[in-house]
């Protein structure tokens, strides 16, 4: 028996002992908090936008057909010249943009991603009540480093993906995927509790909501 096996057995043994010394009765978990909520599209969009803006994220709305034009305009305003995108992103999204579009590859070392001015991705879900977007590493969102190292993140969210609250949004996720919840740009309140935007993560977060998708 190795030391580690001993530690495992000892700790589990102690847990059993503890519950033997002070048994506790089974607990029923009351789940009478709000779940399974729905809201009409315009209200969900209004709430989502309000919360994102409150976090200093920029929000643009467009239709699916307007995606390329909207992204081109957003990237131009960012003065971005090199823009990364995950391999699974719809290639049509960047056709209107005339800068350098760089497809991400797993063998690119993460520090090299610093050379990108911005990154464009899709998303897995959104949560209106908290202004949160969810990335789960799908092909159109890419590996986690891609949306972390560049200083600006442009994220396309379909309104149909935006759930009302946290329970409704989490229900849309696949637990085993590497998942990142993003609510506004990176921030800290560590100095006298004064909020400073942009520490290590992207300092700019732009959310493009497609209202007909």
């Amino acid at each position, binding site marked *: 028996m190795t030391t*580690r096996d001993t*530690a495992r057995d*000892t*700790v*589990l*043994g*102690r*847990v*059993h*002992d*503890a519950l*033997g*010394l*002070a048994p*506790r*009765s089974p*607990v029923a*978990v*009351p789940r009478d*908090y*709000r*779940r399974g909520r729905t809201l009409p599209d315009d209200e969900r969009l209004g709430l989502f936008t309000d*919360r994102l803006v409150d976090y200093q994220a920029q929000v643009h709305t467009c239709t699916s057909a307007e995606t390329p034009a909207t992204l081109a305009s957003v990237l131009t305003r960012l003065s971005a010249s090199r823009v990364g995108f995950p391999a699974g992103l719809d290639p049509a999204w960047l056709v209107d943009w005339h800068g350098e579009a760089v497809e991400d590859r*797993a063998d690119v070392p*993460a*520090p090299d991603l610093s050379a990108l001015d911005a990154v464009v991705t899709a998303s897995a879900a959104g*949560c209106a009540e*908290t*202004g949160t977007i969810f990335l789960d*590493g799908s092909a159109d969102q890419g*590996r*986690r*480093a891609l949306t*972390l190292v560049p200083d600006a993140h442009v994220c396309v969210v379909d309104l149909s993906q935006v759930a009302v*609250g*946290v*329970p409704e949004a*989490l229900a849309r996720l696949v*637990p*085993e*995927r*590497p998942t*990142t*919840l993003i*609510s*506004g*740009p*990176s921030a*800290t*309140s*560590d*100095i*006298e*509790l004064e909020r400073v*935007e*942009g*520490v*290590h*993560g*992207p300092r700019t977060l732009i959310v493009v909501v497609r209202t007909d998708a």
Partner: protein
Amino acid sequence: MSSTFLGMPARPPRSPYGEGHLRGDQAFPQAAARELGNRQLRDNLHKATRTIRAKRLAVTAELPDWEELRSAGAALKNEAMSRLPELLEQLEAKVTEAGGTVHWARDAAEANALVAELVAATGSREVIKVKSMATQEIGLNEYLESQGVTAHETDLAELIVQLADDRPSHILVPAIHRNREEIRRIFLERIPGVDPDLTSVPAELAAAARAYLREKFMTVPVAVSGANFGIAETGTLSVVESEGNGRMCLTLPKTLITVMGIEKVLPRYADLEVFLQLLPRSSTGERMNPYTTLWTGVTPGDGPQEFHLVLLDNGRTAALADAVGREALNCIRCSACLNVCPVYERVGGHAYGSTYPGPIGAVLTPQLAGTHAAKDDPNASLPYASTLCGACYDACPVKIDIPSLLVELRHQTTERTGRGAEQLAMKAVAAVMGRPKLYRAAQKAAAIGRIAAGRDGTISRLPPPLSGWSESRDTPAPPRRTFRDWYASEEGRRALAAAAEHQDLDETPEGER
């Protein structure tokens, strides 16, 4: 399986004495008096706690089901504690299945040695760290240092504390005791190559930290983190943060080592729907923290390709064996109780001498480390570091009844202390109070206190142990007549009869008399 599974249950040990940061070197009253002398600290805390209280109240009031969420959160933690053996084994199986390696540590020393061994195996002499209470508790940084490994704290506040050779004083905002000017000076002295014209504007200070840490994120191949939640059902771990340093550490290095207290396990993935509402609103007063990372083992092509989870006991099973005290294990480290505590607000976190300060620290630290490991153990004073005002209970997102836990721990302390002067006095008082005749005699004796009073009927100086009281308070002399004497007197009888008769007259004021 160990034989303890079958035999008589044995009381699990507390965190061993002398390891990690679960014990200060002074009792609370002395440590608090020392901190009270720091005017800067008082001002910083006053401002900070007020700011964060207001934010928390605003965002919790926004949710009409806040109380239901609190109840669900409390019940879920209770469920997890009652099913701890099976949940830990399930978590272990799921993490292993997903490509991670699970280790167990009985105490701080074992956890530190394990992590050092894992780091050594990578060949790196440096690690980057996500802010973590568990690794603070076990003193991991100091241990790694002794093994020739440099640990870089990457949370801004932890970095400030580390650069200043200081200790964290708050669960969420570890450098809450430092103001911007102090931070500027620390950065100028300790960050190599920092701009000498650095100002004390928070945004500039944050930018200086960003530039300094960027290089570490890009080059150090090993990260160490804690975990806010570990999901048994799926093997998913999570870190809730704001700055993105957590994402950097959890994503960029080749190897990730996570140290998690065994009480952090939750049964189901869906349970996060409760805690991801309770935690950010209670801790930073935000609807949601900027970043939460959820990961399950290893994902090919994305993030660290080697993942180790260290499950830590270090006194947690000792707490679990206490039918009352174990409620402290439900804590999700939001720090709302610190921010509303009138005692914490005056003295700050260092007075508690532990990684866990404030009201929750006053119940959690004694639970993990015990109160009688040493003579005059400073931890024995922690349950008394409260007026029992109850503000912490109201603020707690998982409804930990901290005042009742404090009272229980006080009881456990007095039961173990034996025959102190205080206990003898308490016994004597109870002996009098329990016998009405003696009580009445004592009341008469108390009237002698009038002698000690000055002409104005107040007592301005009392002997020890009451001298601390009389330092800033006058005490009224006992009145000539007790209530019961008045009640039994002719005067009392007449006054009460008159009051009963006047019950209608009061409706029509008589005007000026």
